[in-house]
């Protein structure tokens, strides 16, 4: 019973929180660019407007894939809130990511095709890192279950500082921030028109946007696991991580997928390796 309540709580609260974070993101980004920025609730206005627009679809698969993306993202957040198995949460999340790519590939538009291929490479880049983060959490706490991880008496950050940075790479890719925003991009940025989202429009773009809020909360929730012992520490950690993302987004140029694959895999795997050796030896 408690699990079901937690799942529903997660599914209801996450998009509200995700939308507010997206609004804060746009406002802070504007301030960093010495602009004033839109109101905090702007992402909600955008999505509401998108739901009020005419439905224009190229084929049935776009609709199907947009919905699966939303459902998978919502379910992964719900399962995470309910204290389920991290691996299960991870695979549910991966289904959503792959279906978004399939939706992009279902149309013949070259922008959508190129964007989808790039998105696939991004998925390929962050998934092994995410698995390594989960594996190292398992090595410290002895469990993949979130509720058992939460029972661990010490913050994970103490033993896994490098893994947290590795998770930061996954977060940057997932949030579509520079230098990794080449499959599609946020705010007013344009990259190969809008990359994977080019052919999605109206309500279906709104659905994907809500799915994206869920995914933001999903990754930030994983970040929160690194300092689960105190609420203040947890909030502080998430806030500083997100602010670091904004700084990175505003100071970095957009790079290519080759650079991303080389850089993120080499640095990410090296850091995971060092952290795991340190954990094992120490």
């Amino acid at each position, binding site marked *: 019973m408690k699990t079901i309540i937690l799942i529903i709580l997660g599914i209801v609260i996450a998009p509200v929180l995700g939308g507010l974070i997206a609004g804060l993101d*746009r406002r802070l980004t*504007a301030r960093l*660019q*010495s*602009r*004033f*920025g*839109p*109101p905090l609730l*702007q992402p*909600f*206005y*955008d999505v*509401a*407007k998108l*739901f*009020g*627009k*005419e*439905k*224009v679809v190229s084929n049935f698969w776009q609709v199907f894939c947009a919905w699966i993306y939303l459902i998978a993202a919502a379910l992964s957040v719900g399962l995470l809130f309910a204290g389920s198995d991290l691996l299960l949460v991870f695979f549910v999340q991966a289904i959503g990511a792959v279906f978004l790519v399939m939706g992009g590939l279902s149309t013949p538009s070259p922008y959508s095709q190129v964007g989808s291929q790039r998105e696939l490479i991004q998925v390929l880049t962050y998934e092994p890192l995410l698995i390594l983060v989960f594996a190292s959490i398992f090595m410290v706490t002895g469990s993949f279950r979130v509720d058992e991880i939460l029972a661990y008496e010490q913050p994970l950050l103490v033993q896994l500082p490098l893994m947290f940075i590795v998770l930061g790479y996954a977060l940057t890719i997932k949030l579509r921030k520079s230098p990794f925003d080449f499959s599609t991009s946020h*705010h*007013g940025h*344009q990259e190969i*028109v*809008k990359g994977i*989202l*080019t*052919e*999605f*429009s*109206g309500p279906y*773009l709104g659905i994907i946007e809500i799915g994206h809020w869920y995914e933001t909360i999903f990754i930030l929730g994983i970040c929160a696991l690194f300092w689960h012992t105190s609420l203040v520490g947890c909030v502080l950690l998430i806030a500083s991580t997100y602010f670091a993302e904004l700084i990175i987004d505003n100071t970095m140029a957009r790079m290519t997928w080759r650079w991303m694959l080389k850089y993120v895999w080499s640095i990410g795997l090296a850091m995971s390796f060092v952290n795991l050796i340190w954990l094992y030896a120490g």
Partner: protein
Amino acid sequence: MFKKFIGNSRAKSPWIMHFDCGSCNGCDIEVLACLTPLYDVERFGVVNVGNPKHADVLLVTGTVNHRNAKVLRNIYDQMPDPKGVIAIGACGLSGGVFRECYNVLGGVDKVIPVDVYVPGCPAKPEAIIDGVVTALAKFEGLKG
């Protein structure tokens, strides 16, 4: 209530798309000036998108000729309803100084329906923002 929220949101989140229909770049620079920190139209939720499928408002600068009329028509048709069109600058309104040319059709309204006309050569950023706000009144009229 939900319909009302959508109606409000339409006015609060107009995503613009800018099409240079053979302009001299004067008006284009003024359009982009609206997005700079000085005017910062993102305050009003305006985002400059490059994709007609995501756009709500189409800003057209420059004269229409036989060659680009098809392109303009195509872009307009790709935008999902509800949508607005703003013609910017003397050329966009009537063809301007080029209206007598053998290849020029005239203003934007010869090809697609225009909601708001923003005069000027080039149009001032303030006038363009005013034009967008006027076009939003059309969206507000759609409130359920």
